[in-house]
């Protein structure tokens, strides 16, 4: 696999999957906060 393909794979996967994980963590925290307030 060429170096450019590896680099590009790392950038795309980090952006898409990393973004999803960060948002999921944020959403879980918000849900917990809302449940406590309820």
């Amino acid at each position, binding site marked *: 696999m*060429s170096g450019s393909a590896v680099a*590009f*794979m790392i950038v795309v996967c980090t952006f898409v999957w990393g973004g*999803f994980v960060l*948002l999921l963590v944020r*959403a879980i925290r*918000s*849900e917990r906060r809302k449940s406590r307030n309820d």
Partner: protein
Amino acid sequence: MLATLGMAVGTGNIWRFPRIVASNGGGSFLVAWATFLLLWSVPLMIVEFSFGKRARKGTVGAFSLLAGRKSAWLGGWVAFCAAAIMFYYSVVAGWCLRYLGAAVVGQLRGSESDAFWAGFAGSGSAWLTHAVALSLAIGVVWFGVQGIERVAKVLIPTLFVLVVILAIRAVTLPGAVAGLEFLFKPDWAALGDVRIWLQALTQNAWDTGAGWGLILTYAIYMKSKEDVPLNAFLIGFGNNSVSLLAGIMVLCTVFAINPGAKSEIVGAGNEGLTFIWMPQLFDQMPGGQVFMVFFFLALSFAALTSLISMVELVARILMDAGLGRRQAVSIVGLVGLALGTPSALSLAFLHNQDWVWGVGLMLSGLFYALGARKFGVEKLRREVVNGEGCDLPIGRWWTFLVAVVVPIEAVILMIWWLWEARGWNPESWLNPFLPESVGTVIVQWTVALVALLALQRWLGRRPVAEEGGLDP
């Protein structure tokens, strides 16, 4: 949270993404696709959520209430486009059901899956499974969704986990690296091709549901304390995450099993990509038969839950126009059965419809942006998006994206596409009878737009129900 994850998985990710990325240059397509996640899908999903949450009406009623009665036809286009996709989507859902049955009785053994697909797609059996899938969706919308919701909450996250396991297995197959190279090798020169940008926008809208009207319809039933922006971001990134996994899963399998497959998987005729190659991946795994049953069971559920949302969307428009729920659902069922028949019996027709109405989502997105502009994008941001229940307040950048960037993207892409298309096939680019020509798009869009404009006064004048929410 599970419901949000559930929305992240569907046949758009597992059936459509791998074949579109295969046909559009792999790496260069991913650049355009990821760009449109941020500059198209997420901003429009926020518009859809806020329209539904504010108006508590289907697409026609929401546009009529928020953008003015003269804009009702814009909502009509969104619903028409979603309905046109529904007609062939029920065919794809039927394929999933047929493959579930075949997996259970052991008809899908390794390389035989190619012959199975060839014998099934476009046959009378495919029409039968289309009818079964549509009947199941109609039944659920007719009788209520309580039981299905509970099952879907288990099966759709199961599909998510299965896709992760299968992607890992596919990557570890000997020769799979060629699939990764194909998927991730960037070809910067290819970014000058308008078709890649057009397909990337269409696929991102397919992945996330941006511009379909499904999110708007879902938001009708949202509680006021539920958040808009975080949900939109989560669904957008979640969907694209699953698509990327599905692309890795399918393309690594294809290249590992048949290194010379590139010419077979590119272009028209690759509608069966996932259905042909996934059974061959299961063949390479211990316990593959069991995994295959679970995979097609979960995929069938993902397809059915999406189909149910589409039936609900179209039925909701009829209900807003004064019909009872059962009357509306019956009409949607009968029309869907009839207008889905050509796609069930002809892959070329299905390909044509996927092309015409997939690109139609770009027009839907443009119409959402225009509708938001008429209501006031900044007003929408302050009063609804950042209003009650907001977990992730968004800034004025969103106002700029919706009011300026989204319309410019749509107009530039449209002009660029028409300009370039003349040179591809000078003799036939306007031929309306070719499955993927400009002519077929123009003719079908024109028929739909003329019909909607003729109905504009009726659409804008129809009394809409006072209260949102499910009818008893």
